[in-house]
């Protein structure tokens, strides 16, 4: 840093009459781009090694090289670097937007094909390979029940855990809990599915089920809560830490016991942030396929009872329809995917808007 500045200083000014450094004229970058495009087209089509995509790629590389060379000659090395990195960063943006835009576009254009009342009012029960109708009613029911139960388990547990870490925990034990909550964030969804399979489906559920292991929506909810728990704990923890200390001290000064202070003063203050975190966790859990596949089994019929028999979910429905041989299956898969994304995005957007209104801020 210091050396480059020193070099810059010692270089004699090119135009002593003005204090301005020499700059590339404004028309130079577009001109270089045009030249690069022409050269690339000539090279690619001349040798016949590719099509328009290759032309664009080669042109982009030529543009970067040309821009660097031109700027280096006129403005110096530092400015040349600046321009090149700037171009690279802009192109990274364009590069990433293309596939993401393609995902969104495909989702919408293919998803609206089956977006009718039938899709939301029927299940896949008795729908054969030649039937064009059939819907995701059972899957939507499954998703809502599983995610709802998972939230019922996770929210109290997660909030209490965060309260312990922030308000009561001291020393190594609290640190260990914090650390392992962070580590738990990275547990793959399939592992949590396998855990519930090994724990609930194979060991516990036979007790209620005449000795036979049984898939159920509740098992899926358990697996989802393993995934949701760290997210809820982390966001609650962050929010509790943001609650101003004077609020707590005021309550203590009035003689309010600590537990009541936490429940009546701290939690309500942090509530919007906690709700945001819970909604984000729910949104993530709703999109999980693997755990549901492993422990709820999926199924074609409507099953309102989460404690018995197979249940499906929207994500699993997408996966199963995508693997189905029927020619009507892909349309169902895309519409279910669109529904799922809509559900997840509504939750996420609502959570983000809520976070924006949060008085504690971030």
């Amino acid at each position, binding site marked *: 840093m210091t050396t480059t500045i020193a070099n810059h200083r010692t270089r004699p000014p090119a135009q002593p009459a003005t204090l301005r450094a020499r700059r590339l004229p404004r028309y130079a970058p577009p001109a270089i781009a045009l030249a690069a495009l022409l050269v690339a087209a000539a090279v690619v089509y001349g040798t016949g090694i590719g099509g328009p995509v290759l032309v664009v790629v080669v042109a982009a590389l030529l543009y970067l090289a040309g821009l660097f060379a031109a700027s280096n000659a006129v403005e110096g090395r530092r400015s040349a670097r600046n321009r090149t990195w700037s171009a690279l960063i802009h192109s990274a943006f364009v590069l990433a937007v293309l596939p993401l835009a*393609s995902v969104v576009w495909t989702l919408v254009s293919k998803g609206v094909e089956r977006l009718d009342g039938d899709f939301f009012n029927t299940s896949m029960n008795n729908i054969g390979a030649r039937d064009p109708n059939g819907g995701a009613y059972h899957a939507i029911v499954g998703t809502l029940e599983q995610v709802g139960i998972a939230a019922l388990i996770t929210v109290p547990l997660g909030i209490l855990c965060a309260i312990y870490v922030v308000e009561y925990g001291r020393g190594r034990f609290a640190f260990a809990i914090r650390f392992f909550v962070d580590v738990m964030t*990275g*547990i793959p969804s399939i592992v949590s599915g396998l855990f519930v399979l090994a724990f609930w489906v194979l060991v516990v559920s036979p007790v209620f089920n005449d000795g036979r292991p049984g898939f159920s929506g509740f098992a899926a909810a358990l697996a989802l809560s393993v995934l949701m728990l760290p997210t809820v704990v982390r966001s609650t923890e962050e929010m509790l830490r943001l609650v101003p200390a004077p609020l707590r001290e005021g309550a203590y000064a009035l003689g309010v016991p600590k537990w009541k202070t936490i429940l009546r003063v701290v939690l309500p203050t942090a509530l919007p942030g906690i709700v945001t975190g819970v909604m984000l966790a729910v949104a993530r859990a709703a999109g999980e396929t693997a755990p549901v596949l492993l422990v709820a089994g999926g199924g074609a019929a409507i099953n309102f009872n989460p404690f018995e028999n197979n249940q499906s979910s929207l994500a699993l429905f997408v996966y199963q329809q995508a693997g189905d041989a029927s020619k009507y299956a892909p349309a169902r898969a895309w519409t279910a995917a669109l529904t799922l994304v809509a559900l997840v*995005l509504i939750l996420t957007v609502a959570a983000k808007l809520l976070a924006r209104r949060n008085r504690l801020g971030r």
Partner: protein
Amino acid sequence: MGETPHRSADAGTGGIRVASSGQQRPAGASARVAESPVSTRTPGGDGLGGGGGLPRARAFGAERAFRGLTLAAGTAVLVIIAAIAVFLIAKAVPALGANTENFWTYEGWSPNDTAPKFGIGTLAFGTVLSSALALLIAVPVALGIALYLSHYAPRRLGTALGFLIDLLAAVPSVVFGLWGRDIFVNPVRDFSAWLNQYFGWIPIFGGDGPFGKSIMLGSLVLAIMVLPIITSLSREVFLQTPTANEEAALALGATRWEMIRTAVLPYGRPGIIAAVMLGLGRALGETIALAMTLGITFGISFNLIENGGNTIAANIANAFGEANDTGRGALIASGLVLFTITLIVNITARAIIYRRREFTESAA
């Protein structure tokens, strides 16, 4: 507070003593709360006025109960992690005992046969290869976008696009898998054929097809999936760079890139590492998108463009349907390996972040 205490101080939960004579109330929760030495003297034992409004012995119970409840919830996290390990091991051991081949080196997966044969080698290799490739592609692009959004784009545009990227991070993986299998496979197949034609002499682009559902497709889809996560996390870190540092660099005559290199990137390094590690964690554990886009073969090969590739998680999703008891145990054993790998990655990442305590709140 000069009186002789009429009860021992350890009657409470460690708070200050309640010293007023005639008080029948223990130095319980309420006193403990007021950790500054405030006298909780009250005019009488009948609970009237001042500290007399403090909860009675019942509060002692409530405080203890609540504290115990939160402690139990905190312990539950440790119990869950331990339980995951215990139950996976318990279910994996019988299957590993029944395995007639070496679990680490055998290339193949047929645990449902009468003489079960299965090995983790190819799967672990595929998992690591696809995740590494995905990160190799995603990290530079993600950092580029994050820098664009935080330091190049106009502020309003940057905020709006950042919001959009956050939304994309929430899109479920099954959607990316579906897109990769139905749409993205076509350009990748064309690109693979092109690579094979002109660069076939490099072993990783060799082979004679069919192309398409390859490690390359899987890694690209994976890269596109982790891109929003890494972007949104590192964008947040870049935005938190102290303005003073940035302005100081600019005031010294630094160009915009020099300012980023000297002020933004060093400040954000722990956050970037955390973001990349989280991306790696997601890539390693990704199941459905890879189950839909990989060709599912068994065999260790560095060839990127021929149909093939498999990962631990994708194999679990694909083989679970027809697994019998031993097959299930074998899948659980492979899940245990995946759990161990991700645990090591995560603990390493957290250790790196925790070493820089000042960043833990913001970056992780």
